[in-house]
């Protein structure tokens, strides 16, 4: 995790852009589910949650380094800044774990419809919590 020396305005812009990407992944997950593509949906849900937390980190002036363990660091950060409580932290970590179980047979890891709904609701909650921390952009005042 790196600290970025940006202005507050730049951090806000970066955070809004990253949150936008998180929402795009959430929409992609819904699209995947509509087509019956369960495992790609899980991957997209994981990305949505990861980007939502990354957006808050960007607002705080941090960037996650692209190294092994970075995805775990994102989940840990969500708990560290109390974006989520311990139960949601455990659920986010389970989503991360599931996303990384690609070496297991599909029928062992493919979640049930109820489980997908649980992850979808979790990601929606994380998106809402992240959005609440990031100030919305304001319409600039009219020129004098």
């Amino acid at each position, binding site marked *: 995790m790196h600290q970025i020396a940006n202005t507050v305005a730049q951090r806000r812009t970066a955070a809004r852009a990253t949150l936008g990407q998180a929402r795009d992944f959430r929409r992609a997950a819904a699209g995947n589910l509509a087509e019956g593509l369960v495992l790609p949906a899980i991957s997209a849900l994981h990305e949505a949650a990861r980007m939502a937390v990354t957006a808050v980190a960007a607002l705080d002036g941090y960037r996650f380094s692209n190294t092994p363990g970075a995805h775990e660091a994102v989940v840990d950060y969500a708990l560290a800044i109390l974006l989520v409580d311990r139960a949601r932290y*455990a659920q986010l970590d*389970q989503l991360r774990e599931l996303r990384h179980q690609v070496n297991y047979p599909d029928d*062992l890891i493919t979640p049930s419809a109820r489980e997908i709904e649980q*992850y979808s609701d979790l990601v929606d909650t994380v998106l809402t919590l992240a959005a609440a921390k990031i100030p919305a952009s304001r319409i600039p005042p009219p020129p004098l």
Partner: protein
Amino acid sequence: MHTELVAEPVVALLPMFRSKHQMQILAEVFCGRGALTGAELARRTGIPQQTVAREVARLERAGVVVTQRVGTAKIIHPAPDLPYGEVLRQLLAYAGGVIPMLDRAFRDNLAVDEVFIFGSWAARYRGEPGPPPNDVDVAVVSGSLTRFDLAEVRLDLENESRLSITLFVLEPSSDRLTELRVGSVPVLERVAA
């Protein structure tokens, strides 16, 4: 004169314990529900009660466990303030203590029908040679729970055992169960009332 010794099974996962029996007893005492009698230890581990009594006496002499007499029963506890207690507990978790830990985590959850360990950890535990396992694959059989529901249980287990636990939740009707149970290590099976 040649004397043939019949060795007790060794702990394939971590061959630093005197015997598998000693490891199983220590694992129950340090990683299980605690406060056990010799008879309970024998029942839980499947080790003959005389062997349990002999191993417990040996561990008590070494200061690793303590016993407390309650009526006619002798209750066995981990020795308090054991300087290497935490390290021993961690080693035991890897060697076999994860079994009583899982039992403790799921025993009271009536939505769980069965728990067993499969994959490389189970194979090594059963003595099959191979590289040391990186994680413990745990199958939880339940008709109503999901991995999501058990996320906090998994986190607690990982924190306690310091092992990477991979949970798989399977429906009781799953076709995969028969295949996965082969070579697995049973943890608990709830008998229908």
